[in-house]
């Protein structure tokens, strides 16, 4: 299992692995928003939590189809399915590798991007907390979507359509934590809900993803 995790991270970091892609997309979204809505820093501060969460979600979406598609194309997925590794472990490792290469950089870069959108200073900690807690859910749910569409030619569009509705609860509670934090309000309830979604997804979805992947490999 460690070997698979290390291989996936290594593949993501090497040339053509798409490691910086999500981060660059996030940066572009955050830089473009002030051009779109105008330089009013009061307005920017108000919409910053939502924009940051939306940007993180979309950059995460961008790299989802790579989770299984590349392994499917070169035949590794068939070979991994015959390896002494349960399919549930395989999909869990794949989502963990996706989170480490996409989610974690987004979380770490978010304070810098928040500065660009003039987020109020009390909002940084809740933003970081909500992203750190919410992005694993994005990766796990995305892995499920990727498992559903593996083997489809140009499955990327279908993947986005399938996954976006499933992302809605995470986005609502994640952005709510960041918004309340930025306004200096109490954010325990949405944070607890967000944690519930994440841990529920981590506990249940790998089984669904593994089942779907088994069917798709036939």
């Amino acid at each position, binding site marked *: 299992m*460690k*070997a*698979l995790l290390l*291989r996936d991270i*290594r*593949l993501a970091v*090497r*040339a*053509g*692995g798409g490691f910086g892609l999500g981060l660059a997309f996030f940066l572009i979204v955050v830089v473009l928003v002030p051009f779109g809505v105008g330089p009013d820093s009061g307005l920017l501060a108000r919409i910053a939590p939502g924009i940051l969460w939306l940007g993180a979600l979309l950059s995460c979406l961008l790299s989802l189809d790579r989770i299984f598609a590349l*392994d499917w*194309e*070169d*035949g*590794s997925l*068939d*070979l*991994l*399915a*015959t*390896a*002494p*590794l349960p399919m549930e472990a395989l999909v869990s490792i794949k989502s963990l590798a996706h989170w480490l290469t996409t989610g974690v950089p987004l979380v770490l870069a978010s304070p810098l991007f928040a500065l660009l959108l003039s987020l109020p200073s009390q909002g940084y900690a809740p933003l970081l907390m909500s992203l750190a807690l919410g992005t694993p859910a994005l990766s796990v749910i995305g892995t499920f979507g990727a498992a559903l569409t593996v083997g489809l030619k140009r499955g990327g569009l279908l993947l986005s359509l399938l996954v976006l509705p499933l992302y809605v609860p995470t986005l609502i509670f994640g952005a709510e934590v960041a918004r309340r934090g930025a306004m200096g309000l109490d954010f325990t309830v949405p944070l607890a809900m967000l944690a519930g979604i994440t841990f529920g997804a981590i506990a249940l979805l790998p089984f669904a993803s593994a089942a779907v992947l088994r069917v798709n*490999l*036939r």
Partner: protein
Amino acid sequence: MELTVTGLSVARSGIPVLEGIDFSLQSGEALILRGPNGVGKTTVLRTVAGLQPPLAGKVGLEREAMAYAGHADGIKSTLTVRENLEFWADVFGTGSIDPALGAFDLAALSDRAAGGLSAGQKRRLGLARMVVTGRPVWVLDEPTVSLDTTAVGLFAQAVRGHLAAGGMALMATHIDLGLTEAHVLDMAPFRAKAPAHDDFDGSFL
């Protein structure tokens, strides 16, 4: 150890292609599947390897005994030859990859990125993975595609070594490997009969 396949029927994309296949394979034996394109050799191999369930019948050994090599080699082009093989050695929990590199004459290429290899070299890397798995039954689908005669010789030698060590090999191939001891099974007699309801329009005439 013995691999027994009894009454195996397989389907491709939901259409039954072969039915009632019986064969058995002892330790140290090889079986070559023959048959025209599209007869279902790949489907049989994938079923035996446990990648898809059979329509009917039974495969006597568990999928944990099988090592499968399909049309694609599962090579990551940005990793080196050594890294590719070491990954599989780690996944299968086997030790050194040097015997596998030696068996397919890859030692000189081991630090090259796999993306820069020729088609035949990639195939050799894909086949070297079989040695690394340490599994008793090799299930090989057209293993000699894009190999030159020397490499085919290396491959035949690797298979012989595997059989001598008590392994088994099940493969679909059309070229003569010089494996005189291998049994040959023709797939054509096992072709599935068209089901009666297939002629849907005819039943209205």
